[in-house]
């Protein structure tokens, strides 16, 4: 069981390191999104192209936009947590029932 915990801790650490490392190596970069880089690239290599449709709704400000992204992550995280919690609770309940059956009167 202890080795399992160690494995989990190391995995979490590896994920954190993987995304912290770029920030440490090159803190001065502005980390523009690849999606917008691609858009710039199109404007550069295909200057005659004009987008022929624009978004139905655009969040008014960067703050509102990051808020909506946070909402998306929160919805996903919430559901994922709910599912994992239920699965774990189910297993503990099964375990408790097993021991009761085995050790009960």
């Amino acid at each position, binding site marked *: 069981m202890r080795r*399992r915990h160690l*494995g*989990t801790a190391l*995995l*979490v650490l*590896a*994920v954190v390191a*993987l*995304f912290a*490392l*770029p*920030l440490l*190596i*090159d803190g001065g*970069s*502005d*980390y*523009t*999104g*690849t*999606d*917008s*880089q*691609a*858009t710039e*690239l*199109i404007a550069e*290599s*295909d200057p005659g*192209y004009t*987008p*022929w*449709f*624009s*978004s*139905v*709704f*655009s*969040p008014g400000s960067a703050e509102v*936009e990051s808020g*909506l*992204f*946070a909402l*998306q*992550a929160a*919805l*996903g*995280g*919430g*559901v*994922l947590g*709910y*599912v*994992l919690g239920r*699965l*774990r609770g*189910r*297993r503990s309940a099964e*375990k408790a029932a*097993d021991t009761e059956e085995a050790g009960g009167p």
Partner: protein
Amino acid sequence: MHIAEGFLPPAHAVGWTIAAAPFVVHGARAVVKEVRENPESTLLLGAAGAFTFVLSAIKLPSVTGSSSHPTGTGLGAVLFRPPVMALLGTVVLLFQALLLAHGGLTTLGANAFSMAVVGPWAGYGAYSLTRRLGGGLLGGVFAGMAVADLATYATTALQLAWAHPDAESGFLGAAVKFLGVFAVTQVPLAIGEGLLGVLLFRVLTVNARPELERLGVLTPSPDDDAPAVSRDKAPEGDR
């Protein structure tokens, strides 16, 4: 991998929509069938959808000095096979196109094709191949998640190169440029996504064993009443 609204010429926009539509319809049927025949799958289906929802909302920094987001479509592809993800991935893309001005309605077809069709299938292929070669469940999950992520971005790069070929070097020149933007940045993210998948499966193999056995991800162990300690080791020995 979101192609911005209006950035594909109308012919491409229509073409990719037609190409993606049958996959999404088939995916919707697969989801309904799964829920109807195996109601106990609903929880894990929710987990697969939620995983894509979280991961595609988070932009992460990469070594190239730019940031990008993972896709999270590999999980559902490994658990329920790829068709299910064609629907779940498209729902995520629609959410982002409508509320976040991220991606778009005219590019929904192309984006769905890369993230909800090519990604999950490529990831599932990598997962199956790894398992067949003896890589084990966790090795397979890592490969599946990472490849689903990378394949999605490679597809986007090719779609853009096709729509906007370079004036001098044509499609190939443009493909190299777009792959330069997407693929390199994506490598660390794909590795990170693979590791997250392994973490999640370590939890699932302990807590959702019956579901995983029914879905064929794990083979049923002969000693089902084994104590918890040996159960915890199961992902290693149960191949």
